């Protein structure tokens, strides 16, 4: 190889590259093949207990922890006729401004009830600022089978302490009538 002109040797590099594995990720077409890591910091999610009541208690610790002031929470009192979360209070207004959010996860660390977690969803781009302020209904977790959407009463006989101890396995069906 040493006697070959340097210019021709250069093409050898190009030629061998043809037999190497392609590293390009075909992102929009094969996006499912390259999922983000499970602990990737994506869009937030407001979780529910197993019976569909919201986990958020409106304590605003996430808003206090946020270094970018991206979160706004306004709590309100639960009543016996309209109950969104077990216990005293729930988050009535919950807004996250994704234009401010830096996805650091300090809000998740601050949350005392694990109400706020992050999903791996990242396709958030939009063409105006208003739509990137996500309201509570954009952030709430879906109502899974076995859940009843809030507001409804707690599982009969249970207190909020049973919820926090994770003793609730699902809605019994009596919540809405009681």
């Amino acid at each position, binding site marked *: 190889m040493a006697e070959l002109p340097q210019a021709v040797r250069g093409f050898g590099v190009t030629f061998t590259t043809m037999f190497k594995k392609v*590293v*390009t*990720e*075909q*992102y*929009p077409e094969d*996006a499912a093949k*390259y999922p*983000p890591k499970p602990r990737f910091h994506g869009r937030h999610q407001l979780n529910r207990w197993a019976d569909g009541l919201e986990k958020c208690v409106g304590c605003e610790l996430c808003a206090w922890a946020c*270094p*970018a*002031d991206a979160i706004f929470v*306004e709590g309100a009192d639960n009543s016996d006729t309209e109950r969104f979360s077990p216990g005293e209070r729930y988050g*009535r*207004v919950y*807004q996250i*401004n*994704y*234009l*401010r*959010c*830096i*996805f*650091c996860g300090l809000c998740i660390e601050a949350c005392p009830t694990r109400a706020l977690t992050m999903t791996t969803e*990242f*396709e*958030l*781009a*939009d*063409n*105006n*600022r*208003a739509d*990137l302020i996500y*309201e*509570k209904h954009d952030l709430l977790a879906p109502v899974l089978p076995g859940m009843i959407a809030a507001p409804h009463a707690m599982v009969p006989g249970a207190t909020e302490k049973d919820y926090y101890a994770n003793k609730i396995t699902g809605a019994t069906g009596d919540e809405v009538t009681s």
Partner: protein
Amino acid sequence: MGLEEALPSGVLLTTVENFAGYARKGSLWPATFGLACCAIEMMAVGGPRFDIARFGMEVFRASPRQADLMIVAGRVSQKMAPVLRQIYDQMAAPKWVLAMGACSSSGGMFNNYAIVQGVDHVVPVDIYLPGCPPRPEMLIDAILKLHDQIQHTKMGANRRAQIADLESEALLAPATVEMKGLLR
């Protein structure tokens, strides 16, 4: 801009719109405008793993006169704002702006006197991309959403009608301060 702006509305203009949209989104050349950490992710998009050349955008032009898209990647300081505006003014129309990352979209965590609170205070922004910094896939997603926007851009008489519609809609819409949502 040219002859296409003078066409009457109808089938001909719609065809020209479709073709112009296809051509414009097919070779959307970005201007090199990396300001901070988001620029690293923008460079990753230009690299082989994400390969923006798949969308005909691999040529990051150093001259704004050859660029169609300004990717504002990073925080814009008050001192940088006039420079940014000048680069935008030097770009030939049609031109688009992508605010990449939290800082250029809204100021992000730098809510202070040194940083412009959103690059849309200086130039019109077509697409906002959250993230700090956004991963390369997020930038590609935003670019594809912008491509979709470009494909459906109206021209000439249709564009004037659209502007009139948007204007009358905007006059009826409530002011931002009145949009309270769930707030009391």
